[in-house]
């Protein structure tokens, strides 16, 4: 299978095996493909056994932060008598990222199974899946799948015929990017304005409705059934680079490559192999200029850095950026980097929740300065100002949206200074007018 392109021989299909395989969307279809065996087995195991297996597999959070999943689960208190919650973050809004969407579109039961196992492992009887508002098709597919899972006894008071209750509620977001931040997501789920919360307390102490909560990304949870079925050792063995990064990672490639799409790679695959082999390279006659490797929030890599970059958590950091969500934006030499950075800043200015001063005012001000540069009215001092604002916006706010706006600005000015200079010295004609 594979969607929209056939699976490339260098890919390691685990999560994407059934992409494009519509019959896998039903409970029966999923069971025929080996589904729900892991859940059945899990419900017969002790929760700590599951957590230990996930720990041993080396699975790390696929939403962006890369926090070890088993460790996160083990933070949940036991025997506290309070309701626990599992929240699945399916609010995939990071520009350039579209992997969770495909998981939900093609293999909804992979996610339901992963959620059910995780719920059981952390002592939760209630799971919430928070789906991005714009995801109309994944929403209806997930809705049908959850309804069928209830009808087939997969979920409910006796999940898979066991004595354990696992309930699952789908919640549709209203379109705010910030609601993908885990604490803002919990506020949104509670019916409040989607503002990130101050940590501590961490979700495992006081999360959703003030109860111990674990929040995981779609891709993370979808990987769990495979780990239980095929073993932690197998998963940990899927590693071509640093030993701390195991398993497979879905990379959403977009931009100026011949074959954009989702590619599932063993951790540690070279970025150049992904771009130039699997994705068919750049458009004819064009050369690689820049890559944003992990969704719009991470620093930009130039061509040289991209060339040697290894795609795992440690490798991308070494190259000067972050693996993030795995949303890879590839840009060729036709790209105007100043405009690109302006466009990113405008996004963050629009999506800032307005709580923290630096973010609310800083993202908008940064955008205005970049617009002025693009209008041919910038000065050399504007670059210093941008860098100082970026410094004032980094590490000072409740969540990292502000840092995310600053990161491309700083890396952009550092790595593509000549393009800024072209606007400042009128070597390049203004592209924005009326500013």
């Amino acid at each position, binding site marked *: 299978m594979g969607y929209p392109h056939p699976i490339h021989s260098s890919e390691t299909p685990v999560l994407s095996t059934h992409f494009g395989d519509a019959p896998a969307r039903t409970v029966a279809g999923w069971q025929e493909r080996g589904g729900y065996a892991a859940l059945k087995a899990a419900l017969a195991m002790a929760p700590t056994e599951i957590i230990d297996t996930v720990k041993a597999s080396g699975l790390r959070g696929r939403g962006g932060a890369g926090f070890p999943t088993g460790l996160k689960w083990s933070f949940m208190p036991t025997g506290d008598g309070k309701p626990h919650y599992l929240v699945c973050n399916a609010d995939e809004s990071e520009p350039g990222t579209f992997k969770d969407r495909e998981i939900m579109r093609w293999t909804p039961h992979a996610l339901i199974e992963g959620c059910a196992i995780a719920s059981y492992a952390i002592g939760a009887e209630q799971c919430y899946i928070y789906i991005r508002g714009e995801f109309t098709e994944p929403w209806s597919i997930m809705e049908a799948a959850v309804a069928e899972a209830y009808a087939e006894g997969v979920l409910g008071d006796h999940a898979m015929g066991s004595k354990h209750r696992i309930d699952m509620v789908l919640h549709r977001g209203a379109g705010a990017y910030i609601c993908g931040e885990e604490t803002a997501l919990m506020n949104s789920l509670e019916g409040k304005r989607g503002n990130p919360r101050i940590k501590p307390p961490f979700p495992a102490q006081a999360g959703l409705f003030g109860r111990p909560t674990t929040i995981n990304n779609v891709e993370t949870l979808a990987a769990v059934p495979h780990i239980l079925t095929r073993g932690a050792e197998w998963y940990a063995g899927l590693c071509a680079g640093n030993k701390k990064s195991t398993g497979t990672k879905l990379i959403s490639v977009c931009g100026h490559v011949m074959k954009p799409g989702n590619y599932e790679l063993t951790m540690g695959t070279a970025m150049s192999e992904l771009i130039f082999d699997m994705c068919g390279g750049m458009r004819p006659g064009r050369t690689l200029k820049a890559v944003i490797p992990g969704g719009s929030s991470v620093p930009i890599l130039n061509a040289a850095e991209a060339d040697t970059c290894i795609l795992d958590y440690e490798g991308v950091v070494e190259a000067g950026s972050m693996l993030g969500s795995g949303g890879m934006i590839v840009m060729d030499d036709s790209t105007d980097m100043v405009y690109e950075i302006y466009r990113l800043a405008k996004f963050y200015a629009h999506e800032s929740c307005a709580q923290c001063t630096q973010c609310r005012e800083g993202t908008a001000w940064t955008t*205005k300065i970049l617009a002025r540069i693009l209008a041919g009215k910038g000065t050399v001092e504007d670059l210093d100002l941008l860098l100082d604002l970026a410094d004032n916006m980094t590490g000072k706010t409740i969540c990292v949206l502000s840092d995310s706006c600053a990161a491309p600005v700083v890396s952009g000015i550092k790595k593509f200074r000549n393009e800024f200079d072209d606007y400042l010295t009128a070597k390049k004609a203004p592209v924005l007018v009326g500013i």
Partner: protein
Amino acid sequence: MSTDCVSVTIDGCTIEVPKGTTIIEAAKQAGVLVPHYCYHPSLPSPAVCRMCLVEVEKAPKLLPACVTAVADGQVVHVHSPSAEKARESVLEFLLINHPLDCPICDQAGECELQDYVFYEGRSGTRYGDYPKRFNPVEVFGPDVLYVPNRCILCTRCVRFMDSVADAPVLNVSERGDRAFIGIDPDHALDHPWAGNVVDLCPVGSLISQDFLHKARAWDLDTTASICSGCSQGCNVMIDTRDDVVVRIRPRANLEVNRHFMCDHGRMHYRWMNRGDRTEAPLVREGDRLRATDWETALEHLAKSLGDAGPDVVLLASANVSTEGLGLLKRLVGDTALATTVLVPSGPEEPLVGIPDLALRAERVANASGARLLGYDTDWKAATGNLSRAKRVVLVDLPLDAELQRLLDESHARVVVLGTVDESWSEAVDLVLPMSSLVEEDGTFINRDGRVQRFQAAKGAPGMARPAWWVAAAAWARHAPDRTAEETAAEAFLTVASQVPSLDGITHGTLGFGGRRVVAAGAVG
């Protein structure tokens, strides 16, 4: 060091504070002000203004002092270069969309944005000539105006209405730099405690229409006082300009009203500026009242009461000070037919987020004081006695039609201690001008049995004197061995010596925080 305490060093000053204390509160004890906007000790802390970021040794990032609890051995730098740069940047960010309209802003002079920019902000702007955010002024409620252009989105007002008033009509609307404070379109900001958002607002964004353009902050004289709107006894500040009361604000007292007061009390000040005051003693001469001096008036008073013997009824407002009520009672003696205070009532309006704080049904300040001094509050019984009385002494009571009718029916001669000039009837022999509670020092005893001092905020008109002074001077005339009290503090000592629960208390030992002297409910 006790196990419940931790030791922390803030800007070089090492102090011990209870576990769980936030850095911002610990810093106060160390004498260090951590600049802040969103933090308020009576509201939940959201840590959103990011103004209180401080450097904590060994922490990787600057930490918000308002939500970070101190840890033992922690070393905090409020004035390190990195913390100062962070604050300077917050001020810069706040100012890029803040109009520089201080010359026409009511908050100027008591504005926290102005103050902190003056202390730690940049002298110039780097914003350039971009237009600032603009939104029109909105009327939020009967008194509150919202000027969104000045708003720094600290959300104190939203949190007050949400978690203290439990009337969540405000929110943050929109996102990013388009955000503003929104109001529920189906509601107004008309909660009985809504006026507090004006005090809470650190800038001139939420302002009072009542106070709009009335005075500049630096032209005001501020006096510590007690609200006389009800028996709660909220601690207040009276702001006067040129001897005219222009505003009443809450004064923090964690045991009475925390940082709040209700709108009834806040707006209850126009009477303080009345111009139709009685300014000189008047004695009856045939069919008219003639102005005279205090000597003559006091002579008349002493004689009038002496002639009446025990057939005296004393009717007073329960907004007369403890000193006044105490000495008046001494003046008329224990044998008087009745000594009664008038206690008007109204609906109770609680501020639900603060325990034991409400606009109370008893709409006077000193009913508890009056009860403690042996006054009665049974108005019907007292007025029933009027027919038997030879003398009626009225103290600071409005002469309404009902009271006038009762006086006309009785054959008693009337002595008035009053603040307001009225068309006195034939029955009135003597009118003695009295200062109002904002024109004298004294104490009230609130519903919880708490004695609290207030101070004179403005001068009394003409020859008006405090009620205690009149009572003391007249009393001293009865016998040569008596000495009249000369200050409110002396008057209080006299009163306190007669009441066991007040024994040993003086104005000096009370300070301006007050002290509870009887169990709650004992006098309520």
